């Protein structure tokens, strides 16, 4: 296990180097001269020169790349260009709200989708199954935007079951007051695609010989589904959840925008609109690292979900 982890971590080095190179090329080369963005509407040559010196962009590109690499490894991206906050502070303070929304959403969505998919797979081919499939197809074709606009208007404004938007300092208030509507919306929207996918995973398993054998030796349908089919379908489900995990941290940026939740996703959008490059650069690099770590974690979890999987 130790050797496996060490090897996998070592393999991340070239990928991380690639991510750093990609972000560097994007923001230091394609992105144009940040001094022109920072100097404002009426640029003054002396001021531009000064900003360029401060940011180090009057240096040759390899020095700039070295500065960027140092920033990545010291967790010090300097200050935001627009708010002058420390970038590390910005990221840390935005992480909480995003997780407050996304963790309940992930748990609720996975639980519901797995349960419903198992039920639908159980009655496969029936009218219920076909109706569910048609409904999910149509539901998936409607834009996320339309759902948010309509749900926020209906449940927040018209029926006033939930506050239209808002956020507080207190975790508990957030969880019971402000989080429910965005969480329910997120679950509702991601349910259709997950349900379809998980159903196909279950159907794949149901077709296998071991299911027939289990039935033949007289196991109850319930036991076949829960003990055999569910356990075996867990691997692809785990993969799917694992793939989605890193974007958990970007949060659903649309939800955060509409419900004015001060999370990472909204921060990214704001930074893009304000050309606040340090914030976007930092979030991109660290989320890439996180993605790689999560992928490793999922691979390790495979081994526990299915002991036949050998970690090599």
């Amino acid at each position, binding site marked *: 296990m130790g050797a496996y982890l060490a090897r996998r971590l070592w393999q991340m080095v070239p*990928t991380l180097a690639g991510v750093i190179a*990609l972000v560097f090329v994007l923001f230091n080369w*394609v992105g144009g001269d940040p001094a022109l963005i920072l100097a404002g509407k009426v640029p003054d040559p002396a001021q531009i020169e000064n900003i360029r010196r401060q940011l180090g962009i009057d240096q040759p590109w390899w020095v700039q790349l070295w500065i960027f690499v140092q920033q990545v490894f010291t967790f010090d991206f300097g200050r935001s260009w627009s708010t002058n906050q420390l970038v590390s502070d910005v990221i840390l303070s935005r992480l909480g709200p995003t997780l407050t929304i996304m963790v309940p959403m992930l748990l609720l969505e996975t639980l519901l989708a797995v349960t419903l998919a198992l039920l639908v797979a159980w009655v496969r081919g029936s009218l219920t199954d076909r109706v569910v499939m048609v409904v999910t197809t149509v539901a998936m*074709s409607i*834009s996320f935007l339309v759902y948010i606009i309509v749900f926020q208007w209906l449940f927040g404004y018209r029926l006033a079951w939930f506050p239209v938007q808002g956020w507080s300092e207190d975790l508990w208030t957030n969880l019971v007051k402000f989080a429910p509507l965005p969480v329910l919306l997120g679950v509702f929207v991601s349910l259709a695609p997950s349900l379809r996918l998980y159903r196909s995973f279950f159907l794949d398993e149901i077709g296998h010989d071991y299911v027939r054998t289990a039935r033949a030796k007289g196991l109850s349908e319930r036991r076949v589904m829960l003990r055999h089919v569910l356990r075996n379908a867990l691997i692809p489900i785990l993969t799917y959840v694992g793939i989605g995990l890193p974007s958990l941290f970007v949060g659903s940026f649309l939800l955060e925008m509409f419900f004015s939740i001060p999370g990472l996703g909204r921060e990214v959008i704001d930074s893009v609109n304000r050309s606040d490059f340090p914030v976007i650069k930092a979030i*991109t690099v660290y989320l890439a690292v996180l993605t790689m770590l999560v992928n490793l974690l999922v691979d390790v979890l495979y081994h526990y979900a299915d002991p036949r999987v050998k970690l090599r």
Partner: protein
Amino acid sequence: MSEPAVIAGAPGGAPSPGLWRIAWRRLLQDRLAVACMLVVVAYCGVMLASAAGLVASDWEREVGVTYAAPAFLISLHDVRDEEAGGAISRRAEFDAVDLSDIDPLAPRYDEWRRQTADVDVESVERSLTLPLGGDQWGRDILRKTVKGSEVSLTVGLAAALIATLIGTLLGALAGYWGGRVNDLLEWLYNVFTSIPYVLLILAFAAVLGRGMLTIILILGLTGWTGVYRLMRAEYLKHREREYVLAARAIGVGHLTRMFGHILPNTSHVVLVQFSLLVVAFIKTEVILSFLGLGVPVEVVSWGTMLAEAQNELVMGKWWQLAVAGAAMAVLVTAISLLTDAMRDALDPKLR
């Protein structure tokens, strides 16, 4: 489906139909697929007509009153408009009191009246209702939606084309050559997939700016990874097949083997991936335009329409939201169902 060339040349007997002919025949038997195909063709037709300026070229004309109601709601709104008209005429009577002796501007009224008489004022006929309602400036929502289809379809198709081309090319290189080329491209793939997709798009959007061409580039340059993965696997599988080995034996060059022999045999994968990407990109374009990261404000897209609709809903003007949302939903459903049908029709196992 792998060796149609060999099957077609089978000795003694008519040449058997190729994969595409069989798939096409199977697709035509599927009524749902045909209906979806008609819907997609209709959207493309409307889009082309709009691009050529045949329809909806005057979408910017303010033909109706502000938030003109959809025509099918006419009876309800007629009454309200009459009430509003009544209020204005009562006000006019009240204003008719003679103030000329205390009004300092009174001596100049005649002069102004003469001047204004010289100017031709064309009073625009604004209708109270429009087929599917009007927006804030009284523009026809039907025409706006038609015009918006131009952006959505162009972006979806062009970006999907770029992404599919990049993905196919890189996948072919990695799968066919293996070795160093494969290592390098796998590294590139890992780099692109280690950044969450949303973030990747936004990072590109931050530096590349706005505009339709920019969105096409962004989506095309970030969306190739899925196609690459599948095409690499296909090429890995096919390069050891007998028909490729046979081609090699008679001295066919690498390029011809890659794109003349293997590509036609894997093109069904390309087609399905392409239509999946079209759906994904149409959805993404709507969101980017909504956020103001997509097309400029003066260009109408379904995304900018939804951005306007957000505030209108609170005022009870739901039609722009409904029409733009429905136009997109119908197109996306049609392409998705068509993709499913194509996948089934092209599946060699079902043959």
